[in-house]
C-alpha cells in the first residue's frame, strides 16, 4: 500500500505537473461547491475559465428573501445559519468570479514530505553501499596506520617542527610536553 502510494506521489510526477499537484492536494473541484458546472449535466470537474458562468445552473436563479419595506429590525433579516453563507448570493458571485479564495490559493502542500523522504532514502541507500564496500571490497589499511606507528609519526613531526606557524607544531607545548589547551 505504501509502495503504491509512493508511486502515486513520485511516478505520476514524472508524467505531468497537474497530476503531481493533484497528488499533493491541489486542484480538483474543491472551490466549486454549490454550483455545478457541466456541459453534459451531472459530472463534476474543473471548469475551464471561459465557461465560468457561461452555462446557467439547472436549478435556476437562487432564491432571495424579498422585503417590500426595509427596516432596521434585526428579526427581519436573520443572520446566516450554518451552511447558509455558502448558499448566499455574495458567495456564489465570488465563486463565479474566482476559482479559489486567498486561503485556498496560498495553502501549503505536503510536497516537502515527499522530497524529504526521497532525500533521506537515497542518503540511507548511499550509506548501505558504503558500509558494504568497506566490509567486502577494501583491503586492510597499511601498517603505518597502527596506533604505535601514528604516535611515533606524530612525535617525529613535532621533532621536525612541521608546520610550526599555525599547524600541528603550533599546537604543542614544548615546555610542558603536552598539547596546548
Amino acid at each position: 500500500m505504501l509502495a503504491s502510494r509512493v508511486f502515486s506521489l513520485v511516478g505520476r510526477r514524472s508524467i505531468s505537473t497537474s497530476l503531481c499537484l493533484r497528488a499533493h492536494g491541489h486542484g480538483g473541484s474543491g472551490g466549486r461547491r454549490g454550483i455545478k458546472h457541466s456541459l453534459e449535466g451531472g459530472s463534476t470537474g474543473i471548469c475551464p475559465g471561459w465557461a465560468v458562468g457561461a452555462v446557467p445552473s439547472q436549478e435556476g436563479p437562487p432564491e432571495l428573501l424579498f422585503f417590500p419595506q426595509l427596516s432596521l429590525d434585526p428579526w427581519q433579516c436573520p443572520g446566516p445559519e450554518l451552511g447558509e453563507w455558502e448558499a448566499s448570493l455574495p458567495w456564489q458571485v465570488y465563486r463565479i468570479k474566482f476559482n479559489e479564495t486567498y486561503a485556498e490559493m496560498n495553502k501549503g502542500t505536503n510536497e516537502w514530505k515527499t522530497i524529504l523522504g526521497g532525500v533521506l532514502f537515497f542518503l540511507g541507500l548511499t550509506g548501505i553501499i558504503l558500509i558494504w564496500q568497506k566490509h567486502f571490497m577494501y583491503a586492510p589499511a597499511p601498517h603505518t596506520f597502527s596506533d604505535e606507528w601514528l604516535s611515533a609519526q606524530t612525535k617525529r613531526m613535532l621533532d621536525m617542527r612541521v608546520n610550526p606557524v599555525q599547524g600541528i607544531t603550533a599546537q604543542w607545548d614544548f615546555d610542558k610536553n603536552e598539547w596546548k589547551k
Partner: protein
Amino acid sequence: MANHSQLTFQDASSPVMEELMGFHDHALMVALSICSLVLYLLTLMLTEKLTSNTVNAQAIELVWTILPAMVLIMLALPSLRILYMMDEINEPDLTLKAIGHQWYWSYEYTDLKDLTFDSYMIPTTDLPLGHFRLLEVDHRVVVPMSSSIRVIVTADDVLHSWAVPSLGVKTDAIPGRLNQTSFLASRPGVFYGQCSEICGANHSFMPIVVESTPLANFESWSTLMSSQ
C-alpha cells in the same frame, strides 16, 4: 607535510607562499560574497519576491555589468602583483637541476662541485618506525636556508612536475625543455612534495623532499656527497 584530513594549506616556508596564501584568502572572500548574493537572489526568486519589473529595468543592466567588472579587477590586480613578484630577477645563490624520470627524480648541483644523485622513494615495507609513508626518499635535496635558489626542471622521458606546496613551487618537467623556478626557504626544515603530472604506473610514488639547513650544514653535506 600535511596532517591527516588537512583541508587548508601547509604553513608557508617561503615569502612567495605567504603571498599566495594571502591572495587565496582574498579570492575566497570574493567567492563567498558572490555565493551569498546568488543564494539571496535564489531565495527571493523561490519565495516569489523578485519580479520581472526588477530584472527588466534599465538600471539593473548597469549594475550587473559594472559589478562583475569590479569583481574581476579586484581579483586580477593582486594576482598580477604576485605573478610579477614571482618573476623578479633575484640573483640566485645556488642553481639546482631537477630531472624527472620514470619513476624517480635526479638532482644535479653543478655550481661548485659536480654533485649528482638520484632520489628514490623508500618503499613502505622498508620504512623505519614513524617515517612518512609514500613521502620519504633515500637522498633529500639539501639547500641552504634564506638563500635564493634557482631550480631548473626538466624530464628525461615523459611529463613530470616538481612540486613542493609549502615552498609555493610547482613547475612542469617537460622532456627537451628547461623550465626555471626559484624559491627562498625562510626557515630550516624538511618540506615534502609529490610529482604533480601523471607519468605512468608509479606516478604517486616519486616524491620530492627539500631539506633547508644553515649554510655551514649545507656545505658539509655537499662535501660529503661529492666524496661518495
